[in-house]
């Protein structure tokens, strides 16, 4: 135990100093709650931009947390936590958008004007523009919508979107272009 004793003296003999508790990046061996607490605002932001409804964001974040609880043990790479959570959020949001589209088709989805999607600091023009965009997005399928939203509302590059959506870059490029044409047409009609 010579080595241990030597280390004991080195590690314990230094008097502890008071310090500010700076948030450390949680490691994979740490508690999932600390991990999730770190990335929950990021997941919520993705949720808002994909769903466009503030009242659905909490449910999405909760769903992502549950999926993360069930699947964290499969994750080994610390760097992968953030994109992994983003991929779960995208998958959950896409499912929600599909359900919403089905409800709309059946006449059960509520009419949404999306005037509240922008935050309190938005100008009336910005508010109207974002509302028009989300109304246009409501008219398209979930895959097109997710691809376009990640590209133009979240500012992700095509490669990242392809990884998040589990498909090729060319597919994403095609979806973004198609969705873009539809959104532009709708915005011009609204204007």
């Amino acid at each position, binding site marked *: 135990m010579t080595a241990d004793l030597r280390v004991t003296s080195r590690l314990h003999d230094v008097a502890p*100093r008071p*310090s500010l508790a700076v948030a*450390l990046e949680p490691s994979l061996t*740490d508690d999932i709650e600390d991990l999730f607490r770190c990335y929950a605002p990021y997941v919520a932001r993705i949720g808002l931009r994909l769903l466009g409804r503030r009242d659905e964001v*909490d449910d999405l974040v*909760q769903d992502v947390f549950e999926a993360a609880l069930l699947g964290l043990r499969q994750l080994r790479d610390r760097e992968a936590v953030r994109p992994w959570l983003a991929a779960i959020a995208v998958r959950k949001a896409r499912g929600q958008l599909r359900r919403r589209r089905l409800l709309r088709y059946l006449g059960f989805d509520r009419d949404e004007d999306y005037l509240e999607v922008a935050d309190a600091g938005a100008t009336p023009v910005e508010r109207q523009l*974002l509302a028009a965009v989300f109304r246009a997005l409501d008219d398209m399928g979930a895959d097109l919508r997710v691809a376009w939203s990640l590209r133009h*509302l979240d500012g992700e590059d095509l490669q990242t979107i392809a990884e998040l959506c589990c498909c090729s870059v060319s597919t994403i490029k095609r979806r973004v272009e198609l969705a873009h044409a539809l959104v532009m047409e709708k915005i011009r009609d609204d204007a």
Partner: protein
Amino acid sequence: MTREPMRDLEAARARLTIEWSDSRTSALMVRGRSRLRRRRRALGLALAVTAIALFAALGGRLAAGPGGVAIDRPHTRPQPQRMQPPLPMPASRQAPAGTPRAPAVTGFSVVAESRDADVRVRRSGRDAGAPASVDLVAGAARFEAVTASPRRLELRAGSVAITVQAWVFSASRAGDAIELAAVRGPVQVWVEGEEIVLVEGARRRFAPRQAPPARPRPRPSPAELASVDRLLTEVDAARAAGDPERAVMLLERVATEYARAPEAGLAAFTRGRILLEELGRPRLAASAFARAAELDSRGRLAEDALAHEVEAWHRAGDAAQARDRARAYLQRYPDGYRTERVRQLAGLP
């Protein structure tokens, strides 16, 4: 809106923000955990019902479990599709004359099934929230729930501790093990965090877990030892400079990148202490102590690390985890020098 909607959109998308707080995350995590628990419970129930239905449909023989003994069922009677209260015990199954009468346990009728039966009550079960607990010192006994729903009972024999929820079951002591038989209705058993369901008529033996054979830890190379030495010097410097965050980060590197080094366990332990005492992050500290116990599983540090892990969970306000780890401590170190403290922190009797 200008003629260039995309340029406007570039600016407008910055207004797609959401105010988020730690308390909101906490509330969602509590809701998420609770929903997962409900789903797991429903799944367990569905599996149990399916197993019972299959058993009822197939009848005949049933294997008692992996490596278990096949039990002959001399006659089959219609199996209930849902749990029903126990029937009165037939005279032929009652304890032979002269067998000692086992003490009463709240919610259960306990009958000795052998002359040497010795069942001692550890906890009566009268307090809400904690199931009754008994020590099966010797012999065999039969436990029958005397309530309208199956009751939960903690059963101990030496270092083996299981929790049972059932209508009627019989338990016997075999050396250091408990042999359990589901007499009537399904028996749910929780052992070391694992849930097992025994269908009616099944038997299972619960023995102390055998420690895996000790593997000699590979010796670290001189280069690794030098790296560890350098990192520990940096740890000293960081702590002396009042930078515990950096010290924690460096200690984590020692514990993960140089796990073969003799200092790895102590590094993980020290990381836990800094997180707990200097940075006030008990959850991270708990995982660090767990890592220390793992790295030094056969050394004297393991006991201290496990006790500290209980304290960390206690400080984190996670009573369930604290109790769980405290039970592990008490099972592993029944005469440990931190027994009293661990019991006190976890609220165990």
